[in-house]
């Protein structure tokens, strides 16, 4: 059963978006002392974008750590990014970076908690994506 892997900081913005999808999802742990997440099935990654306008540190460290595991990386099928248009050209930059590094499609961007339309769109889109796999 394919699924969702997500990272969300203590602000919980990305988690709240993922919750609204009502699909099975695994969370990348927040702290280095937590046991790392190992996935067994293909998944779409949901990640917030960090940092300012210069693109430094856009991908959360925890996500990098998760993707540095080769097995985890082999199962990624796409990435959905969260961000804020206030960050200009760095808007949802984490999605572009992961897409490029992992050679998977950058599926969708949403702002902060996302809108009801974003939730519907991503739910439908993921359904289609898994049918094609």
């Amino acid at each position, binding site marked *: 059963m394919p699924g969702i892997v997500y990272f969300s*900081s203590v602000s919980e913005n990305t988690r709240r978006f993922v919750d609204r999808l009502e699909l099975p999802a695994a969370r990348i742990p927040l702290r280095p002392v937590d046991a790392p997440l190992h996935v067994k099935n293909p998944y779409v990654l949901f990640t917030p974008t960090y940092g300012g*306008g210069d693109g430094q540190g856009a991908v959360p460290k925890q996500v990098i750590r998760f993707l540095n595991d080769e097995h985890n990386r082999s199962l990624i099928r796409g990435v959905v990014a969260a961000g804020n248009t206030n960050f200009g050209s760095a808007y949802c930059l984490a999605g572009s*970076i992961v*897409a490029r590094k992992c050679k998977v499609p950058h599926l969708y961007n949403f702002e902060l908690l996302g809108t009801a339309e974003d939730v519907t769109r991503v739910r439908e889109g993921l359904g289609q994506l898994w049918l094609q796999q």
Partner: protein
Amino acid sequence: MSEKLKLVSRVSAINWNRIQDEKDVEVWNRLVNNFWLPEKVPLSNDIQSWHTLTEAEQLMTTRVFTGLTMLDTIQGTVGAVSLIPDALTPHEEAVYTNIAFMESVHAKSYSSIFSTLISTQEIDEAFRWSEENENLQRKAEIVLNYYRGDDPLKRKVASTMLESFLFYSGFYAPMYWSSRAKLTNTADLIRLIIRDEAVHGYYIGYKYQKGLEQETPERRQEMKDYTFELLFELYDNEEDYTEALYDPLGLTEDVKAFLRYNANKALMNLGYEGMFPKEATAVNPAILSSLSPNADENHDFFSGSGSSYVIGKAVNTEDEDWDF
């Protein structure tokens, strides 16, 4: 003013090696990395462009900037400072001092724009306008009342509204000019402010949510109702303010969509879902693109339209710990 000065009741030496909330460090670092000064932006390159604007366009733009100066002054001297006594951690207090200073930098940067583009007399007239404009004064008054009040959570709501919503009737103007390839250096400066305000709104909204976690369900409901009422009150006033500024140029409706879009984002920063429906928040793509050049790129892979296998462009990352 005869109010009693409210200060933190007890100060301990701040220990950055013992952190209660990682968000404090993360946001501090982000703010420090984002630090800038108006002197770094070559505003004088906009002088020629400024003279291509009509008198009405110049007037609107000048007034917009005095309005923004007003809000940044409030946030720098009262708003961010008023949050310090209720901070949950010493590091949160430190972050507010950073925010307060940066707001003063923002307020000062409008003066840099003014001194570059217009005469002393015009500057004085614009400031007089800001003192006399009812809607601008009204929004200052609404927010200041909460800053002076005794409810720490309401203060955070008002502060997030200011950071994430009230600025945008003003921010529209430089984004509009930038979309027409005018005043582009001024727009670069404003984008730096917009970036800072996003971090401020996010952080204060986050601290509001942390505070809310410790409250009863009744009190949480009260705060939610209060937040939406305040937003409506401010939005009503923003509509009038927007009409006063933009009616002469026929831009009002376009600005209002931008206001509603940002009102929703202010609510999201406070942990609530947006209030205005999609149709009401459709920001003019030219404005959105001026704000965030890649926001209008096709990142809806699901739609299947166009070359939707979107792979990011070349970007710098911290490759040392990204080792595959």
